[in-house]
Structures are given as structure tokens and as C-alpha cells.
């Protein structure tokens, strides 16, 4: 493992891409920044711009419009960039599988590295997902 990935695992800046979610996952993501969970301990902060991001946090089921935006966002992110699918919708579309406006799940649009299921996932589950992500990056 080289220095580049070692530094990346210690300071993951997260860009929050909401692909038409119901906002429950987003609220739970914001919980991660609060005193109880405080992911800044692990060096994670929310980045304002996609150009600063190391991780793309995708919530919700992409529809025809957000699908294109998501693709564009991923292409705008500086590599190495990982994608985390948060919530059951982003992981596998659950009940929107046959919906008229949901063309495909997230992982057919962008390559997803970590799936965090749950509706919404608990902040603890997200931290567990982050731990898995770090393990995966270290294995790279």
C-alpha cells in the first residue's frame, strides 16, 4: 500500500449526491457530523464542491434526470474517487424496481465500492460501512 492510499484512508472528503431520495438517508448522514458520532475523528468532512471530494455518497433511486447528473458528477470527481451507496434504494431500488421513472440502480450508472443497506441505515451502520471502505482501500 503506498502513501497515496494511506493518506486517502485517513482523510476522506465526502460529497453528498442526492439522487431523488426521500431525505431520510440524508438526515441520517447529517447525524454523522453531530457530536454523538463525529466522523471528523476519522478525518471525514463534507466537501462543498465535487472537485474536492474523495467519496461520492449516493442516496436514492436515480431517475432519468438524476441518472445523467450522477454520471456527470462522477466524471467530474478527481480520481481516485470511491462511490458509496447509502440506503436500500441506492443499493437495489427496493419497491421502486418496476417504477415507470426508475431506469436503473446506482451501480449501473457508476461503479459502487461499498453498499450500506437500510431504510434509512443507522449512523452506526454507516460508520461500519466506512470501516469496510477503508479496509477495501487498504487492500488495493
Amino acid at each position, binding site marked *: 500500500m503506498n*502513501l*497515496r492510499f494511506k*493518506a*486517502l484512508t*485517513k*482523510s476522506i472528503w465526502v460529497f453528498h449526491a442526492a439522487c431523488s431520495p426521500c431525505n431520510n438517508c440524508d438526515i441520517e448522514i447529517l447525524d454523522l457530523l*453531530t*457530536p454523538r458520532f*463525529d466522523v*471528523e*475523528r476519522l*478525518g471525514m468532512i*463534507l*466537501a*462543498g*464542491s465535487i*472537485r*474536492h471530494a*474523495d467519496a461520492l455518497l449516493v442516496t436514492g433511486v436515480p431517475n432519468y434526470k438524476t441518472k445523467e447528473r450522477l454520471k456527470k458528477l462522477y466524471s*467530474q470527481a*478527481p*480520481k*481516485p474517487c470511491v462511490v458509496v451507496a447509502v440506503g436500500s434504494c441506492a443499493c437495489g431500488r427496493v419497491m421502486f424496481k418496476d417504477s415507470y421513472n426508475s431506469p436503473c440502480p446506482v451501480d449501473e450508472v457508476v461503479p459502487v465500492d461499498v453498499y450500506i443497506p437500510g431504510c434509512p441505515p443507522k449512523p452506526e451502520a454507516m460508520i461500519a460501512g466506512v470501516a469496510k471502505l477503508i479496509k477495501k482501500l487498504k487492500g488495493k
Partner: protein
Amino acid sequence: MKILFHYLIFPGFLFASCMGLIAGWVDRKVTARVQWRKGPPWYQNFVDIIKLLGKETILPEGAKNTFLFAPFLGLLSVVLVATILGLSIRFPLESFVGDLIVVLYLLTMPAIALIVGAASSRNPLASIGVSREMKLVLGYELPFILAVIAIIIKSKGVIQIGAIINHQINFGSNIFLPSGWVSPAGVLAFVVAIFCMQAKLGLVPFDMSEAEQEIMGGTLIEYSGLPLAMFKLTKALLLYTLPLFMIILFLGKDLSPAMLIGKYVLLLVIVVLIRNTNPRLRIDQALRFFWGPMTFLAGAAVILAILGL
């Protein structure tokens, strides 16, 4: 050779950036503790810089060359300021005439670098950030220079940092009178300079040029990888340099290492507390603040300094 050593290693780049990054960590840690969080480990800012160096650098379509040159312009000038200030503290008699003015000019360079770089990125949000940054520079430079003029008058009209330090060693810090009482001119100028320092650092009440919540990073929006690391490093260097400049101007009586660190920490705590107890101002409010009360106070400080108070 010696000049290169001073510039790159001891009071210059390496030392100053290490100090600045650690100060940046203190800022983040204290902020976290104020918000009842734990905060990042001490090496966090170093890791951030190393990580950004390893990331891809994206050049936006149609960006000018200045997009990549600007970060280095800002960084190099702040390193020069750090070198001049560090050398003046160690050898007050060896500084050259007029270095105060050089330092004032060089301290404006990071803001100009940010303006030049962001303006060439062709991003609409960046251009909003640029216009705010420009107005902010126009706002804070006037009271800041007036505050410095008050200090120049108090130290008998010298424009040499070493001479200002010498004057304070002989007659007491500039926020005190030679008789030992608090000097109204010095204190007024000090208060004004602290607010200008906050704006120069781009920290929370005056961070409207890179407001992450409304304009997504503003001036920094298109930067990634190496140039972003340079801007972060410039910010860290400013966090080391500006409080040092304040100490030299206002609290320069005893500059032994222990006292220097104590005064530096005091100023850092003031900066962090202002940052944590204030919401972000709108740009018009900031401009009114600097051209109204701050300029008035700084003008009063100059008049009091002429009267010898």
C-alpha cells in the same frame, strides 16, 4: 545559500508550514470541543495535504494558465512574509528599510492569487466568490493600513520591522504607553487589526467568498489536487504569519520563545473564538462593518497616536 536556507527551511517554508498546519489543527480541535465533539487527530492537516498531492488535478475546459500559476503566487509570497518576519524577530537590527511596506503588499498577494486563479476557472459560482473576495479585500485593507499607520506614528515614524521591535523593546509594547498605562491608540488599532486578520484569514464571519453551503466552495470550487493543496497550505501559512505580524506590531516587548508562543496562542484563541461564536456575514454587511465602525476606530487610533496617547 544562507538566504535559500532561510527561505526554504528555518523561518521560511518548512518551519512556517508545519507551524501553520499544527495551528490549523488547534483551530479544528477547539472548534470540535466547542461543539462538544472529539475532533480530528493532530496530524490531520498534514494528511489532508499529502492526500491532495496524490489526487488528480483537473483543469477545467477553457481555463487560462493563471489557473495553475495563481496558487504558487500566493504560497511564495506568504513564505516570503514568514521569512522576513522570522528573521526580523531573530535579528531585529538586520532588517532593511521599508520591509513593513513590503510585508503589507505581500500579505495582500494570497487574496489576489485567489481572485486571479478563481476568475480564470470559468465557473459562475467561482466568479461570485471572486466578486465577494474582491469587495472584502477593498473593505479590510483600508482599516488594516490605518491601524499599521497608527503603529508607525507610535514608533516615531519608522517603516522598518526591526526598528519597530527595537522601539518596543526600549519603550514597551505598542498597546501600552511608555509610562505603563494602556495606550488607547494602541488598543484601538489592535482591535481593528484583529478583525482585519480574521478577514484576511477568510475565517467564519468573513468567509463569504468560499461559503460552502451557498456557493459550494466559491473561489475554490474548480480546484482539485495539487493547486488545492497549495491553497490549503497558503491558508495554513497565513494562520501562522498573521498572528506573528500582530505580535510584532502590537505586543513586541518580550520576544523570547516562551513569551512568543504564549502570545501566539492567545491570538489563535481569539481567532478561533471569533470564528465559533459568529454566523457568516453577508458581503454588504461585512463591507459596511469595515468601512464604517472599523475605519472610524482606526482613524481615531491614528489621531490619538499623533496626540501621543
